[in-house]
């Protein structure tokens, strides 16, 4: 036991001596959560728009006012001719244009006409996400305007859709980013750092000396991973605290269950890290393998940034074998929905299976290859 303690002490000393490692370990989670939370947000406010309104009647002015007062749009320019549209978009001053027909009010009242009143919405799709969001906002405002008009006219049946966004009524993006960053950081620290630190011992030849010593392979693996397990747990706590205190995320479920699931996910990540280190020849190899094989898929395919539902079948299938795909809903379920194991048992079981599988695989490899 003392031998093992001496080894763990050395591992901590190694990690803490290197300022860069410490900075990556503790600085990165904080920076990432703050970045994702404050800077990257899906909501758009006060987008610059232009209005081309040749009819300039009570109805077109009312609709323009309604758009601007929604808070999503800011009237940047009033255009006089369609020729002015192109330069306005080209210079990037406006993100969307609203074009009224010459007889907007009149065309609405005239039920005999074949074509109904039209408003043209033109978006700047050089940034497709923003354009889609803006057009959706504008459509919603116009639909609202229509309902009000219809409500005033008796005899026309009206369906008003009332929406409620459960669990996250303000639709804060940070509710998605905090769990996402957590899956990413825990994977990064557990898997990448572990694989690099083991590959390093191989590269420098110290692994041979350790294997010749009375330390058993299992002790070497535990000794290399225990410090990272501890540090990753601290990281997870920091991320959750930031989510709760800075971004006002709720903690509706059991914090103990969350901690337990974190440890489970870390076991999966650590065994992946050990597996990679048995394959990689040196530190660079280990770094590339974990960056390309673990971090990229965790970020892109787990549903953290892009919704899995909209991915091609192949990518969805790959997503299934990524641990974060299962861990992400677990964090959200516990923190935001307040559910327990009765709901999350499937995800949990899958992660347990992954942990056992990779642990067995890496243990076998560790003996064979080192």
């Amino acid at each position, binding site marked *: 036991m003392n031998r093992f303690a001496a080894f763990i002490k050395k591992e901590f000393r190694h990690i803490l001596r*290197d300022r860069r490692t410490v900075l990556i370990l503790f600085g990165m989670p904080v920076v990432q959560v703050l970045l994702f939370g404050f800077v990257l947000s899906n909501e758009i406010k006060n987008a610059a728009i232009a209005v081309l309104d040749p009819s300039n009647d009570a109805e077109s002015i009312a609709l323009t006012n309604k758009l601007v007062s929604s808070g999503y749009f800011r009237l940047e320019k009033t255009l006089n001719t369609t020729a002015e549209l192109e330069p306005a978009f080209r210079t990037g001053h406006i993100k969307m244009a609203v074009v009224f027909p010459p007889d907007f009010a009149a065309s609405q009242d005239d039920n005999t006409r074949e074509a109904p009143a039209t408003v043209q919405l033109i978006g700047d799709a050089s940034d497709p996400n923003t354009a889609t969001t803006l057009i959706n906002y504008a459509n919603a405002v116009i639909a609202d305007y229509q309902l009000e008009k219809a409500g005033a006219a008796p005899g026309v049946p009206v369906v008003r859709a009332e929406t409620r966004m459960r669990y996250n009524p303000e639709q804060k993006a940070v509710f998605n980013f905090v769990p996402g960053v957590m899956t990413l950081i825990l994977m990064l620290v557990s898997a990448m750092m572990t694989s690099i630190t083991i590959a390093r011992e191989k590269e*420098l*030849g110290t692994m041979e000396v350790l*294997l*010749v010593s*009375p*330390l058993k392979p299992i002790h070497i693996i535990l000794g290399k991973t225990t410090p990272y397990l501890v540090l990753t747990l601290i990281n997870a706590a920091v991320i959750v605290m930031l989510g709760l205190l800075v971004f006002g995320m709720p903690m509706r479920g059991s914090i103990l269950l969350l901690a337990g699931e974190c440890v489970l996910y870390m076991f999966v990540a650590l065994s992946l890290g050990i597996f990679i280190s048995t394959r990689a020849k040196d530190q660079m190899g280990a770094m590339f393998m974990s960056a390309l094989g673990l971090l990229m898929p965790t970020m892109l395919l787990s549903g953290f940034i892009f919704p899995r539902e909209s991915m091609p079948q192949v990518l969805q299938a790959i997503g299934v074998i990524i641990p974060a795909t299962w861990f992400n809903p677990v964090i959200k379920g516990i923190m935001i929905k307040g559910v327990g194991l009765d709901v999350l048992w499937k995800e949990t079981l899958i992660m347990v299976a992954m942990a056992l599988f990779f642990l067995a695989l890496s243990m076998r490899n560790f003996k064979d290859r080192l």
Partner: protein
Amino acid sequence: MKSMISTDRLSKTFGSFTAVDAITFDVQEGEIFGFLGANGAGKTTALKMLTGLLTPSSGQATVAGFDVRKKPDQVKQRIGYMSQKFSLYEDLTIRDNIRLFGGIYGLSNRDIREKTEALLEKLELEGEAGKLVGSLPLGWKQKLAFSVALLHEPGIVFLDEPTSGVDPLIRRQFWELIYEAAANGVTLMVTTHYMDEAEYCDRVSIMVDGKIEALDTPRAMKKAFDAEDMDEVFRKLARGA
């Protein structure tokens, strides 16, 4: 004299390739045994079996009186090891390295403290204990690594090309440490590809294609092969293979 290493038709095969082919030899207590051979001749594989890194495919080997197959833990506690790649942690201090390896081999804290002071004094590194090992010149690193390998007072020390990349003067100094250890009753098994170093050994074995082709004192070997020096012996043997 008792024998510290004893093998009987020790073999290792990887698939259809026989890396070590039924080698049989004994090394006596306090002996400096040179283990020679070209790259790929099988000496590293043989060394790995004797240090418990590889399990033999067939044959027997006892090290420090214990069967390497049945009692690898007993063997590991009684041997020291220094590899061709430098075997201390460069980014830890000298003191931290000594403390780590002392701890791994199960020395008590008091033992570690006392041995650390003795070792630093002997190597004249008292003032440098807090320095990173990486900042030492290569020759000093090798000496330190050897001293750390002796820390837990093993009966046998395996040195796998300990002096590769070191200049001749430092190599001489390093061999003085080896002689000193041998004089204290430590058995040393050294692999090297410097033939001048082979002359420093009490007895030498030369491996060719997994087999031990010659085993004797350097003097007897030179006589048998009618050679000026070990280098010539080695070339004559290799040509015969």
